[in-house]
C-alpha cells in the first residue's frame, strides 16, 4: 500500500529532472546567439569608429579586445545565472522528493501504530477470554464437583443405612442416582482434561513409542484380571513429540481397544506403524465390537459416543483429547471400523526436522 506511493514519487522526480535538462539546453543556445550578436555589434562599432576618425591601431585593438571581453563576461554571467536557476530547480525537486518520502514514512508509522493498537486490543481480548476460561475451569472443578460429590456421598450414606428398608425398585433408583452423578463427575473431569490439553505448553522431545505403548499397556492391565487381551506390538518409529501428551494418547487408544474388545473370545490388540513421506502413521487395532463407518466422523467429537454408557463406560472425551493432542502436533487422526469386526484408530505425527544424535529417546 505504501510502496506505490514511493515509486510514484520517484517517477515524478525523474520526469522533473528530464524537463530541467531539456530547457537548460535551449537556454544555452540563446546565450550563444546573444553573445555572438553582442560581439558582432562591438566589431561593427569599432570599425565605424576607425573609419570615421584617425585613431591608432593600438586604440582599435584595445576597443576590439574590450568588446570581446564584455561579450565574454556577459556570456559567463548568463551561464552562471542559468546554472544557478537549474540548481535551485534541482534542489526544489529534491526537497519535494524528501517531503514525499517523509509523508510516506509518516504514513507507514501511522499504519504501524494502528496495527500495534489493534494487536494490543486483540491480545487484551484474548487474555480476557483465556482468564475467563480459566475462571470457568476453576469453578467447574470446585463449585460443580462439590455438589456432585455431596449427591454421591448422601447416596452412599442412604445405601449404607437404609438399604434394608428399600424395596428392589427403590434400591435401583438409588443406584441410578449414583451412576448418573458419577458419570457427570467423569464427564466434567474429561472436559477439564480436554481443555487443559488445548492450553498446556508442549515440549517436543524424541519419544520411544514402542516402549511407551508397552509400558502403558502393562500399567492398564496391571492387577485387572478381566483384561485378557494380548498386545501385538511392532517396532514403532521414535516420535518427535510431547512425552506426557503421547502418554495420554497411548493410554486413551489402548484403554479404548481393551474396553471394546473385552467381550471377544480372544481379544487382540495390535499396534503398528507406517512410514509416509514426511510423517509417521501409528495405528491401534482391536478385534472388538467395532463401529459403523457412517458415524466415523463423530468419534473424535467431545461427548459423542457410539455406544450407550450402560454398554461401555467412559466420559466420551477420550478420543476428542487424542484428536486435540495430535492436531496440536500438526498431525491427523482417523478411524476405520466395521460393526462387529473391530476398529483401527490411526494418528500421524510429522517427522522431526533433523535426527539428533546427542540425545537418546526419552520415555514418557
Amino acid at each position: 500500500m505504501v510502496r506505490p506511493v514511493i515509486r510514484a514519487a520517484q517517477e515524478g522526480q525523474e520526469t522533473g529532472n528530464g524537463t530541467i535538462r531539456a530547457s537548460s539546453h535551449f537556454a544555452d543556445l540563446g546565450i550563444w546567439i546573444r553573445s555572438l550578436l553582442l560581439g558582432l555589434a562591438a566589431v561593427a562599432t569599432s570599425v565605424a569608429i576607425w573609419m570615421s576618425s584617425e585613431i591608432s591601431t593600438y586604440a582599435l585593438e584595445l576597443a576590439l579586445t574590450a568588446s570581446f571581453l564584455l561579450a565574454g563576461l556577459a556570456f559567463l554571467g548568463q551561464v552562471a545565472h542559468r546554472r544557478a536557476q537549474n540548481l535551485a530547480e534541482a534542489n526544489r525537486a529534491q526537497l519535494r522528493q524528501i517531503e514525499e518520502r517523509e509523508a510516506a514514512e509518516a504514513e507507514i508509522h501511522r499504519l504501524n501504530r494502528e496495527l500495534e493498537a489493534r494487536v494490543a486490543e486483540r491480545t487484551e481480548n484474548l487474555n480476557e477470554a483465556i482468564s475467563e476460561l480459566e475462571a470457568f475451569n476453576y469453578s467447574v472443578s470446585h463449585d460443580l464437583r462439590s455438589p456432585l460429590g455431596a449427591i454421591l456421598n448422601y447416596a452412599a450414606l442412604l445405601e449404607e443405612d437404609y438399604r434394608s428398608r428399600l424395596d428392589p425398585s427403590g434400591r435401583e433408583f438409588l443406584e441410578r442416582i449414583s451412576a448418573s452423578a458419577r458419570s457427570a463427575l467423569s464427564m466434567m473431569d474429561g472436559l477439564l482434561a480436554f481443555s487443559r490439553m488445548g492450553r498446556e505448553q508442549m515440549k517436543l522431545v524424541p519419544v520411544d513409542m514402542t516402549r511407551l505403548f508397552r509400558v502403558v499397556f502393562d500399567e492398564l492391565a496391571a492387577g485387572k484380571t478381566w483384561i485378557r487381551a494380548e498386545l501385538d506390538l511392532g517396532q514403532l518409529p521414535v516420535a518427535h513429540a510431547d512425552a506426557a501428551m503421547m502418554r495420554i494418547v497411548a493410554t486413551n487408544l489402548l484403554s479404548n481397544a481393551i474396553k471394546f474388545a473385552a467381550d471377544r473370545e480372544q481379544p487382540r490388540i495390535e499396534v503398528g506403524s507406517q512410514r509416509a513421506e514426511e510423517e509417521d502413521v501409528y495405528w491401534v487395532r482391536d478385534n472388538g465390537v467395532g463401529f459403523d463407518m457412517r458415524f466415523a466422523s463423530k468419534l473424535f467429537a467431545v461427548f459423542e459416543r457410539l455406544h450407550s454408557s450402560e454398554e461401555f463406560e467412559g466420559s466420551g472425551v477420550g478420543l476428542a483429547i487424542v484428536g486435540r493432542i495430535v492436531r496440536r502436533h500438526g498431525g491427523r487422526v482417523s478411524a476405520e471400523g466395521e460393526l462387529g469386526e473391530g476398529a483401527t484408530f490411526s494418528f500421524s505425527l510429522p517427522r522431526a526436522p533433523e535426527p539428533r544424535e546427542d540425545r537418546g529417546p526419552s520415555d514418557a
Partner: protein
Amino acid sequence: MPRKKIVLVEDSPADVAVALRAFRRHHLDDHVVVLRDGEQALDYLLGGERGGANGESDGELPKVVFLDLKMPKVDGWEVLRELRADDRTRDLPVVVISASDQATDVRESYRLGANSFVQKRFEGTSPGEFLAEAARYWLELNRTTR
C-alpha cells in the same frame, strides 16, 4: 483441655458425614474433632486470642489436620498461612483436601507449607475412605518417628 488427634476442617455437611462414617469404620471416631470453618480452626489450634493467652492452646497438638480449601470466612490457605507463621504449629502435619486437583491449587498449597494434598474422592462403596486411610498413615508416621 487436650486436643483431639485428628482435626477435620470442613464446611460441607455431606463430606463431614461420610468422613465421620469412615473414621468410625476405622475406630478413629473418638479421636476426631470437626471444625466448620477456618475461624474455628484457628481458634482451636492457636487459641481464642490467637496468642495462646487463655491457656487453651497449652494442650497437646493434633497428629494431623485435614484442611478443606474452600470455606466461608477464613479459607484453607489463610489458615495454613497463619499456622505456618506461628512457632507452635510451624511443623504441624496439615493435609489439604479439595474437590479440585487444579495444578494451581496443588502448587499454592505446597508453597504455603502443606504436608500433603489430597483430592476428595467419592467412592461408591466406602465413602470417605481416602480420609480414614490418610489419617491412619499420619498417625502411624507420628508413632514411628517419635
